[in-house]
């Protein structure tokens, strides 16, 4: 049953060194505040899972918290490279990074298989491509009905899923709307889950037709962190700070500039500092 905690307590209780953690978000609702808390707590040897690792994973990789990355597209959307990810892969800085690389379809299917308590996912994919040569977890199965060969990937069962949602109600039920990504699948596939939210309300009221609800008993911990998705966005609260994504590019290019940025903007800040970015739209 969901428990309301401070962000630092929610992270400390649920995430441990060496865990596999999925901080999901498909451009919308990326859990930046929670990622920064993970950096502040000095976590290490993490395996990170995400379809679209962006700046928050780049920051976790750049501070050396990550041993392995399971992913399908790692870039700064519309801007360019993740420079810390590149430095880790190309130069082993600040430490070597193991990659388990997939396609989006494969990881989406793998989360769904995890949520469905299946051992693997089967789908039509990976035809004629080289990923199958460098990722031994990509295998195949013959359909028992048609004889067709299908691609398979193991189900994802992360130790922890961390997501940012729009609202929780007082009972700890959680609401997401708009682009909902794979967050529901990630939470249901994971052993434990930490959810940051913009606010707590008495009642969800009228809902967007695309609303996703996570019942309180599927969530481990909730932390109220207004602005916690900045510079990503929270629909109905604040817009994506596209200018920040562009501004981060030169910061991440240089190791020293990056580390200074982390020190000033992560180590010397707290979850409460994200509140300045949250403005609920009228």
């Amino acid at each position, binding site marked *: 049953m969901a428990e309301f905690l401070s962000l630092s307590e929610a992270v400390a209780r649920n995430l441990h060194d060496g865990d596999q953690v999925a901080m999901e978000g498909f451009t919308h609702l990326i859990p930046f505040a929670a990622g920064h808390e993970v950096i502040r707590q000095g976590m290490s040897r993490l395996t990170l899972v995400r379809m679209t690792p962006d700046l928050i994973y780049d920051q976790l990789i750049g501070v050396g918290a990550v041993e392995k990355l399971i992913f399908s597209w790692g870039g700064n959307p519309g801007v360019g490279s993740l420079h810390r990810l*590149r430095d880790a892969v190309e130069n082993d800085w600040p430490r070597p990074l193991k990659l388990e*690389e997939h396609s989006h379809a494969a990881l*989406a299917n793998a989360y769904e298989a995890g949520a469905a308590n299946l051992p693997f996912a089967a789908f039509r994919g990976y035809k004629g491509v080289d990923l199958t040569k460098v990722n031994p977890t990509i295998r195949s199965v013959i359909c028992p009905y048609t004889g067709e060969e299908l691609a398979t990937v193991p189900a994802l069962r992360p130790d922890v899923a961390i997501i940012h949602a729009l609202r929780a109600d007082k009972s700890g039920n959680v609401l997401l709307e708009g682009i909902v990504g794979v967050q529901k699948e990630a939470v249901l596939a994971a052993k434990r889950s930490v959810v940051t939210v913009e606010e707590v309300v008495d009642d969800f009221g009228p809902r967007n037709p695309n609303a996703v609800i996570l019942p309180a008993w599927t969530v481990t911990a909730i932390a109220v962190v207004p602005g916690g998705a900045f510079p990503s966005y929270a629909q109905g609260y604040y817009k994506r700070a596209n200018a920040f994504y562009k501004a981060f590019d030169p910061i991440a290019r240089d190791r020293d500039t990056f580390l200074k940025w982390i020190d000033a903007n992560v180590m010397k800040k707290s979850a409460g500092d994200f509140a300045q970015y949250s403005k609920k739209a009228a």
Partner: protein
Amino acid sequence: MAAQVLSYTATEMMTVVAARALKNDDVVFVGIGAPSAACNLARLTHAPDITLIYESGTIGTKPNVLPLSIGDGELSETALTTVAVPEMFRYWLQGGRITVGFLGGAQIDKFANLNTTVVGDYAKPKVRLPGGGGAPEIATHCREIFITMAMGKRGFVEKLSFITSLGHGSGHGSRAALGVKTKGPTKVITDLCLLEPDAATCELTVSELYPGTTRDKVAAECGWPIKFAFELSETAQPTAEELKVLRDLQARTTAAHGGDA
């Protein structure tokens, strides 16, 4: 009719050619960058009913400004509906409901296979690129694929470092041998010319030159000895209307992304 003399950039020409290739009843899997500009230009000109789908889950989206990312709020707010990402890849893409998929890449070969993964060796790459994302399955599930890429010897290469997504494999028959029933890349839209796979071999062949481009210029920007169609035509230059709509769209986009959140 006397041709009006207009000034436009190579990128604008590429975007206009890509837009013209789209039909009013197409269902398009849109990528960020040039494809997004082309798809919305088509929607705002000759194809008002086109269905644009972004892999973040938005279906029938009509953005007023171009998104910087694949999941900007603008996409969901203007969409007919927004579905979860697993549903997008399972029901809509794998389900065979997309007519045209747009792809691009860091490298392309003469059979329109693409690389967006690494330059150099996979285990110790010279350059680590973002990776495939949706491309491996977009390339095989959409009815046909349009590729947009600026020409240059670094991008148009004899041999890819890595095959991220399948084009025509090693030539005619490759896709069928893998059990893939879709057409694959039917157009490669560059900043200098239009390339289409040869009917017999599937090798990319220049079928149209843009105004002001020469065979020599195209050959100089290609990393393999490029072939030209027997009947080579010249692409019509952008119309004043196409340029106006595209530039208005870009200006709205710059204004929207330039400021703060």
